């Protein structure tokens, strides 16, 4: 039974989505319960998968769809799933965030989805299915189909908001399609030269036939990278992210902001290390190593400065996501195992941090009715429980121990020093300082009240602002997810040693 776990993680939310559509519009409560059960079941199975992968040194689960064992050929003829500890950790993160978010959406679904609640839950579950499938698959074309599943569900989910959200979603459609099509072109080029689509087999053929110097393989790598970078909002291809995530309905934003870009970073690491191999990517004859690290430095600095300039809390958080993506891309391209492990650990920690901050921001905006930071006066007195969660997330962004943000920065800086890339180390430190400025400004206002002399002439941009005359705390169904997120931020930090060991053994 345990060998079927990878496919069961996918099947449960898929069935959940179908049942939710059948339940129809008259039963929104039951739709919520169905989604909760299916995503909860899926996270439990993925937790067991982690245990299975860690035990007996069962390093990798390989699961062949349709049972097509390569008997007369060396290559795979079907599609297979490949679950090692890295994939298992990311899958657990995805399903767990989905589950906790579904708790959060209980009170907001009716108001924001305007009678289309079953379709919202169906799209959410299909998004989780797509993300899990991306992480587990071992076939390059299957990866494209699953990327398109996640993209299509996100286009539809964002466009369910107000008119600004629809416009941002259209922009996202155009840029996302360009990115996915570039990825498809790259895979096509690889197929022309190798004749197979399985990721491990492609690497084997590239190594056997010494195809690494061929121009077409280099171009294939460039286009796959460009496609994946567009999807993860790596500067300067980040144009779609701030508007899309800031104007999306609040419960959609909390689903997508922690997950989409991080899973794309995982795809980039997979493509670099398992599809092409580190000998190809880091070899000295290619000039792109230095170039990409400089690009990531620009991404970190630009993301941090643009976040500093914003007065709208959600826009600020989205620009911080852009900076975090810069950390991860730079870490992966450093060329040593410490950097790669740091980048991978940052996938998990950034998912937790962003999740925590986005939920906190959505709750605050909901209660105050205003998404500008200038309106955060005296929040520590009025909404103390929410602000605790917000503080944990903010401290992690700045990088203070024992939160996970500190440890991921620590490993990334160590990797940068090992590789001798001092500009990357400086960019990390600079970004921590800028984050400190941003968040302490918010803390000051939330703790001490209004600062005299600040101009306030911008109007709110959030769609679901619901002004409440007496600002009080929010119902438990919103606070519990926030606390689960904060606790995971702390847990990931405390458990960084064993996690790091597992990650490093998998990467070697």
């Amino acid at each position, binding site marked *: 039974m345990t060998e079927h776990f990878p496919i069961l993680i996918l099947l449960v939310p898929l069935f959940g989505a179908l049942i939710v559509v059948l339940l129809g519009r008259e039963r929104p409560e039951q739709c919520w319960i169905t989604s909760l059960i299916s995503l909860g079941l899926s996270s439990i199975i993925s937790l067991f998968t982690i245990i299975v992968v860690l035990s007996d040194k069962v390093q990798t689960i390989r699961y062949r769809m*349709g049972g097509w064992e390569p008997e007369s050929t060396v290559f795979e003829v079907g599609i297979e799933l490949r679950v090692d500890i890295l994939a298992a950790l990311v899958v657990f993160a995805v399903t767990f965030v989905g589950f906790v978010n579904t708790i959060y959406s209980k009170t907001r679904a009716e108001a924001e989805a305007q009678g289309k609640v079953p379709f919202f839950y169906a799209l959410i579950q299909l998004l989780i299915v797509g993300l899990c499938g991306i992480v587990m698959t071992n076939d390059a074309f299957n990866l494209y189909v699953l990327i398109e*599943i996640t993209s299509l569900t996100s286009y539809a*989910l964002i466009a369910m908001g107000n008119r600004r959200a629809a416009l941002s979603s259209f922009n996202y459609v155009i840029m996302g399609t360009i990115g996915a099509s570039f990825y498809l072109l790259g895979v096509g080029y690889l*197929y022309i*030269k190798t004749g197979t689509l399985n990721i491990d087999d492609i690497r084997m053929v590239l190594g056997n036939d010494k195809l690494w110097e061929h121009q077409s393989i280099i171009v294939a790598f*460039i286009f796959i990278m460009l496609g994946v970078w567009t999807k993860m909002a790596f500067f300067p291809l980040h144009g779609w992210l701030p508007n899309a995530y800031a104007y999306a309905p609040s419960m959609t934003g909390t689903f997508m902001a922690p997950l989409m870009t991080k899973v794309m970073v995982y795809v980039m690491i997979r493509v670099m290390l398992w599809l092409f191999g580190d000998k190809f990517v880091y070899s000295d004859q290619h000039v792109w190593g230095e170039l990409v690290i400089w690009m990531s430095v620009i991404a970190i600095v630009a993301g941090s400065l643009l976040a500093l300039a914003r007065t709208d809390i959600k826009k600020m958080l989205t620009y911080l996501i852009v900076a975090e993506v810069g950390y991860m891309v730079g870490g992966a391209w450093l060329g040593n195992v410490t950097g790669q492990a740091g980048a991978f650990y940052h996938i998990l920690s950034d998912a937790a941090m962003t999740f925590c901050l986005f939920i906190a921001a959505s709750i605050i905006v909901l209660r105050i009715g205003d998404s500008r930071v200038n309106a955060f006066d005296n929040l520590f007195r009025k909404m103390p429980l929410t602000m605790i969660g917000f503080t944990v997330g903010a401290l992690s962004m700045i990088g203070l121990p024992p939160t996970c943000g500190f440890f991921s920065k620590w490993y990334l800086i160590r990797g940068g020093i090992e590789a001798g890339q001092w500009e990357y180390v400086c960019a990390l430190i600079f970004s921590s300082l800028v984050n400190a400025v941003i968040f302490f400004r918010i803390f000051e206002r939330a703790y001490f009240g209004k600062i005299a002399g600040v101009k306030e002439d911008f109007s709110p941009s959030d769609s679901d602002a619901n002004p409440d005359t007496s600002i009080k705390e929010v119902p438990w169904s919103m606070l519990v997810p926030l606390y689960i997120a904060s606790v995971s931020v702390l847990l990931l930090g405390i458990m960084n040693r064993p996690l790091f060991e597992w990650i490093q053994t998998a990467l070697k």
Partner: protein
Amino acid sequence: MKVFGLIAVFVVGLLLLSATQDFPSWGDPRSAASDGEVSSFYIEKTESVTKVPNMVTAVLADFRGYDTMFETVVIFIAGIGIIAVLRNFEGTDSPSDHDNDDDGAGLLARFTCSLILPFIQIFALYVVAHGHHSPGGGFQGGVMFGASYILLALAFGLSKAKQLFSERRTMIFAVIGIFIYVGWGVLCLLLGKEFLNYSVLDSILPGDSMMARSHSMLVVEIGVAFTVTAIMFSMYSNLSTRGRLSKGL
């Protein structure tokens, strides 16, 4: 903006074309893709392992059946995504929408349509069922079947088509299609082998394990056809009425 676009397009185009110098020529039978082990396996062994002469259907529904399942999910997402974005549930019962309750196109169109429609549907079912021996399969047949309903809506008016294929029924059909596909794979899982491993079904289907693969491909293609039909009609009815499902084109 236009200059920037032109430069970007030039750079991308040159990069793509620079790789063609070590590509195989047009129609080269000895290229790596065409001569590779995977393609040779598909061409030489498919009929003996699955008893299906159409290699494309065999690869689509059996070897790469996992991919096809997600392809069906993609079209399902498109259908419910369009409903989620566009559908306006409040205004469907306003009387002004039923005032000029249309009767579609003119008399000639309706007469011709009522003559042709059964043949279109029978041909669509033929394409689905005969996908093993000729070009065809679930997607192709499903699109034709959905198109027949769209033709009905164009000729007779959307309200007449909705009587036959209401929104609720469309959703049920779409869901049943994916249920058939995924459920068939889960059946293989329950009988002991991997997901979508059809050979284990020879205990409940007539024939040996190879015929079981052939039959399962047909079942799976039928599931795909259900979903594609329903979603094609749903996409048409939502896009043409801007989500109000009141008057057609």
